[in-house]
């Protein structure tokens, strides 16, 4: 079947098998391997992408279901070479070790801040509770999202601080 959708703001069109999962469509058909795939049971959350602005587990959505819709993946977070504050936060607060869970955490973190710019620690923990990290123990991920909340200007804020100090 033929599907067309917007991925990170760009229109894509492909012929696919109806059974193609969105995660495989993104990785294999579009070559966007930033989105990871880590389980067959919809548990790990490393495959999380935004579908019309809502985070979903892309291993549990058919590419066919996204036909005509807008998808945003981790590759779509930076704009004009500048990292999104959420990405900068993961750098500042060491929010990753192996990085396997990171694409999903970034998308969920971004969406959380979009609807709740000043989340409490509990709200952050709740938001990422459907995603597994085997490295960090979550503490630095929570701090990374908090950093992004405190620095909506992102990387620019870091430069500012460097200049001032």
């Amino acid at each position, binding site marked *: *079947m033929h599907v067309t959708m917007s991925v990170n703001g760009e229109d894509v069109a492909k012929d696919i*098998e*109806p*059974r*193609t*999962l969105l995660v*495989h469509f993104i990785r294999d058909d579009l070559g966007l391997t930033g989105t990871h*795939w880590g389980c*067959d*049971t*919809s*548990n790990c*959350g490393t495959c*999380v992408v935004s579908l019309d602005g*809502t*985070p*979903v*587990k892309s291993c*549990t*959505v*058919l590419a*066919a*279901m996204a*036909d005509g819709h807008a998808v945003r993946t981790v590759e779509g977070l930076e704009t004009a070479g500048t990292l999104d504050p959420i990405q900068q936060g993961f750098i500042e607060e060491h929010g990753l070790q192996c990085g396997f869970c990171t694409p999903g955490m970034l998308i*969920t973190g971004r969406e959380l801040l979009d609807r709740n710019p000043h989340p409490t620690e509990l709200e952050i923990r*709740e*938001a990422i*509770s*459907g*995603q597994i990290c085997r490295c960090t123990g979550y503490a630095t991920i929570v701090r990374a999202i908090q950093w992004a909340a405190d620095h909506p200007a992102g990387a620019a804020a870091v430069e500012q601080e460097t200049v001032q100090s």
Partner: protein
Amino acid sequence: MQIPAPFEYARATSLDDAIALLTRYGDDALVVAGGHSLLPMMKLRLARPDWLIDINELHELDYVRRHGDELRIGALARHRTLLESAEIAALFPIMTEAERVVADPIVRNRGTIGGSLCQADPAEDLSTVCAVLGAQAVIRSATGERVIGMDEFHQGPYETAVEFNEILVEVRIPIRPRSSSSYEKVERRVGDWAVAAAGGSVTLAADGTIEDAAIGVTAVGLSGRVTDAEAVLIGHRPTDALITEAGRMTSAAVDPMTDQRGSVEYKRHLAGELTQRVLKRAIARARRQEA
């Protein structure tokens, strides 16, 4: 890597279109709503439909609205919508408390009340909630609509009264004065299915006695309501002793299995303990409503 067996995909453009597609493809077709039960089953090849009828574009089935003394919820309402509904929280705290522990926030963005009820997994939280609240299911086919109670809707594990050419379109919950409810679930870790859970609802009479009561349990081998334990409560003043007795009877009525989530003894204990807790909370809330 697990992927579903091949199938044909059709996106329904209207409710009538969805029913026409189901009627045309018969037993070989399945509706897909959130897909968060069906797609995992298709990956495991436990489900192998030849046709998938996608109803996600039928936004007219995604609503929560009050209609007289009923709250009506469209089959395509997502878990997240139910969790965030202030109206549901005020009228049916049992549903809000259940939604807080249904899966995880990302799954809740996608899964629907219709899919939950039609999946009829014995560990499905909303099945218990709807049974306790005395909900009715509105089921549509090419020839019209029928409205049935939850006892008739759920026919056993993974089995419902919805025929191959029918769609669940709405859930109706009666709004009753001087009533309230509660849900509590024990899970091994965040986002997991219940080890055991209980839901309770009470209606108080003007003199403070229990006019009506409903108890339901999740994942402990008893679907529908625990009518024996309910009967103990009705007509009496709510005392600790009475609630302890209702808990004891629930514990005796359930028929759980030992699995990786816990032993029979543990689950039996939970069923009784959680029943007492939700009844106490429901009664306290119903009293506050009276005031």
